[in-house]
Every structure is written in structure tokens, then in C-alpha cells.
């Protein structure tokens, strides 16, 4: 199974674990409603759209309410540390939470006790804590944006707000330099999907591919469109694609969904997510070489 863990912006929502389903503009988990907005909600929605299309088991999600004070985040960490070996997911995708260096280290230790190591994916603050802890190498996939790439390249930064100015000032054409620096410092996962005007797919320091079409610059303004890429890549890895293949298709699909949605800066992320089935119908077979008709796979 694929397990996605993260906080949601509902202050009183307790720790909740269950299979996710969609209900209009909301997600349903164990009878609780979660909005499909920026953050873990958008990521889960994109993953669910993918598993639905591929007729795979829906993601299991571990959610906790947290509006910034960290209580829900600590519950997530504690539950995962205690139970990850028993949960035994094939893919573990970590998302929004209050980064905690001690608990991140404990979680990585607990994962080493799993009979089968999950594919480890981190975005948002779970990526911040993995880097700040010095355990980026324990992860298979990070999905930073351009600013977060500068953060990964800065050995002293524990949060993107403290990145060296000259790294932030860099032109996007210098992203490959930041990538090299991050790998040299041991601050990158095995695979990076760097989201930006040009998306870079990088494996162990080597740039395997770039994706720049379709070009939909307004996507940067839409809250949650980075989260959807992480959801897509997580579900595509769960579907059996190699991480770099999953990353390339995720980058293409996200851009194409923005185009299909005729996105403006005022577009909401759920409008982009609503386009994923149409994007998959039109392009997934062509992009992946793996084609489905009514749930039946053919090559």
C-alpha cells in the first residue's frame, strides 16, 4: 500500500488513518472531511486521481489537524515511529508538518527496522527536516521548487527563510549548479524533481531530463500545484514506474492539467486536479508506454 502522511488545516482534527476517497471538492477519510486545498489535501487528491485512473488501491492516509502549533505534527511523527514497521507501506510519502529534527531521526531509524524498506518520498517541511537532520540520503525522492533547491544547496540552512542570498539570486539557468552542490553536501535524495519554469529530473546528481512544456507560468501562483506533483509522482511510483519515469510523467501531467484548466493566477488547485483524468486519458499511454483500456493493461 501507499501511505501519505501530513497535517491538514483543521485545528481539532484528531490523528486519522484510513483509505481516502473523494466526495465532491472534499476528501473523505474515516468519516472525516478534508478540503482539497493547498498542502496535504492537494497532494492526496492528485495521488487519488492517479490511483483511481489506474484502478489501483486508493492511498492510505495518516492525517492530523495542525494550524502551526505543532501538536498534530508531533502526533504524526509519534504514530509513524511506533507503527511504521507494522504498517509496512510500499511507498511512504511525507508532506506538511512542523519539522522536528529529533523525531525525523527517530523515524528514519524506525524505517530501518521495516522488513521491506518503503520508497521514501518527501516534500514541503518533511523535506526540510530530512535535509536539516542530515538524512537526505535516506530518501528516494525530494520534490523541491527553485527556492527549496537553493535551501538544499546551502549547508547551513535549516529552513528556506535562511538561505544565502547569492543562492536565491541565482538565475534559473544556474539550477544545475545548485543541484551539484546539494549532492556534494549530501543534502539531496537519490532522485530530485526540481519544480520550476524548467523542471529538472535528477538521479544521484545526474540530470536525466528536463520538462518545460507546456509552459504555464501562472502555475507558480496557484497554491497546491507543487503539492500535486508530489502526489502524482508518489502514485506513479506506487503503480510500478521507475522513480525517474514517474517524475518525468508527473511533471508533464501537472503542466498539461494547468493548460487543460486554462489556468490563471486566480485558479484553485482543485480545478487543476479535476483535469488529471482527461490528461491521463490523452497522454499517459503515450508518455509511459503502458496503456489501459477500462482497467485492462496492454502494452
Amino acid at each position: 500500500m501507499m501511505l501519505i502522511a501530513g497535517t491538514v488545516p483543521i485545528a481539532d482534527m484528531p490523528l486519522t488513518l484510513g483509505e481516502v476517497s473523494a466526495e465532491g471538492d472534499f476528501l473523505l477519510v474515516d468519516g472525516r472531511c478534508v478540503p482539497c486545498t493547498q498542502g496535504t489535501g492537494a497532494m492526496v487528491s492528485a495521488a487519488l486521481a492517479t490511483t483511481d485512473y489506474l484502478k489501483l488501491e486508493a492511498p492510505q492516509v495518516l492525517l492530523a489537524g495542525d494550524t502551526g502549533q505543532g501538536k498534530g505534527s508531533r502526533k504524526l511523527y509519534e504514530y509513524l515511529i511506533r507503527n511504521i514497521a507494522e504498517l509496512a507501506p510500499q511507498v511512504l510519502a511525507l508532506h506538511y508538518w512542523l519539522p522536528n529534527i529529533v523525531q525525523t531521526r527517530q523515524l528514519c531509524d524506525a524505517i530501518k527496522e521495516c522488513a521491506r524498506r518503503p520508497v521514501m518520498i518527501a516534500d514541503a517541511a518533511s523535506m526540510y527536516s530530512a535535509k536539516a537532520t542530515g538524512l537526505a540520503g535516506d530518501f528516494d525522492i525530494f520534490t523541491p521548487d527553485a527556492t527549496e533547491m537553493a535551501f538544499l544547496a546551502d549547508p547551513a540552512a535549516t529552513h528556506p527563510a535562511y538561505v544565502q542570498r547569492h543562492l536565491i539570486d541565482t538565475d534559473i539557468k544556474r539550477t544545475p549548479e545548485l543541484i551539484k552542490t546539494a549532492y556534494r553536501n549530501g543534502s539531496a535524495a537519490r532522485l530530485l524533481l526540481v519544480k520550476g519554469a524548467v523542471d529538472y529530473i535528477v538521479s544521484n546528481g545526474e540530470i536525466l531530463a528536463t520538462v518545460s512544456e507546456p509552459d504555464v507560468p501562472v502555475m507558480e501562483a496557484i497554491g497546491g500545484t507543487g503539492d500535486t506533483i508530489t502526489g502524482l509522482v508518489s502514485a506513479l511510483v506506487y503503480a510500478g514506474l521507475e522513480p525517474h519515469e514517474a517524475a518525468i510523467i508527473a511533471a508533464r501531467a501537472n503542466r498539461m492539467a494547468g493548460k487543460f484548466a486554462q489556468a490563471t493566477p486566480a485558479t484553485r488547485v482543485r480545478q487543476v486536479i479535476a483535469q488529471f483524468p482527461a490528461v491521463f486519458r490523452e497522454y499517459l499511454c503515450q508518455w509511459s508506454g503502458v496503456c489501459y483500456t477500462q482497467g485492462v493493461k496492454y502494452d
Partner: protein
Amino acid sequence: MAFLKRKKAAFEGAGLVLFNEVSDAMQAEKTLKRAGYQVKLVAPPPELRKGCDLAVAINLVEKLGIERILRQSDVAYVEVAPLRIDTSEILEIVRVTDFGDWVMVKAANMKLTFEKKSGVIVNTSGGGCPDIPYLHAELIDKPLGEAPRPGELGFTLCALMLERALEESLALYKGGEMP
């Protein structure tokens, strides 16, 4: 050995609150613990020492909420500093992108986009801390001047950067010097 382990754990949050007076440090620890923060009294490294040889170790990401609690509780402190002395100053860079009818203002990893004509916030994006999706929901569809302030509602460095983006957006909108 046990002593060494405890000392290491005290510095795991990557940030320190620095004080002039020992009594302020002790008061701050009590106040922050009462508010639910996981903090610890530690000796600051010599290069960060300001006035006294006690500091409060914090999770640096929680800087915004911690400074607010200390101010509200009238606890005097010198500054909140990253533990590593080679850490850069907090980013002050703000970038503005013209999207035609809309303007996007970016501060570090946080972006806020508003409609030029009405000044209504249409999107926020970026970040990764748990208050950001909450602030996204609170800010969207509100006029810049009437929107809740991330600096007051939020708790984390991401919220602090969103506050900077909102401040810059307000200045642009009120000053009429939009791209």
C-alpha cells in the same frame, strides 16, 4: 556518556533565544513551556553569547510564534538566532511578477498573488509548514487591507515570509506603483 547525549539533544532545534539577563532566560523557558513549546535552557556557544550564559534552545522554525509569546508576556530577549553561526541572515529579498491583471509577490519561499484592480488576494503558494494551508484558506478572497495578518495568525518561518509578501503587496497596492 548520558550527559553528552542530553547536551546534543538540547541543540536539535537549530535555534536559540538569547538574553541579557539569566532571569529573563528562566522566565522565557517557563513561559514557552506553558504555551506548549518544547524548549530547553542551555549554555549558548561563546560566539553567540550576548549578555548572559543562558539561552533557550528552540525549534527555529517556530520563531514567529515564540517571539509573539515572549512579547505578549513581556519577557525581554535580545534575539532569536540560528544555532549555526555560518547560517545566513533571514532573507529580505522580495520579487514581483507581473501576470497582467494580477501581481505575484514572492518573499523567500512564499508567494502571494492579488488582483491589481481590486486588491483582492486570489492565491498564496509555496512553503511547507502546517500553518501555511490554514493561512491560504484564511487569506484567499480577502482584500489586502482587510486580510488577517500571517504574522499574527501564523507560527512559523513560512508564515513570517508570507507576512513579508503581504506587507510588500500592500505597499505596492496602496502606492499604486504596480508593474
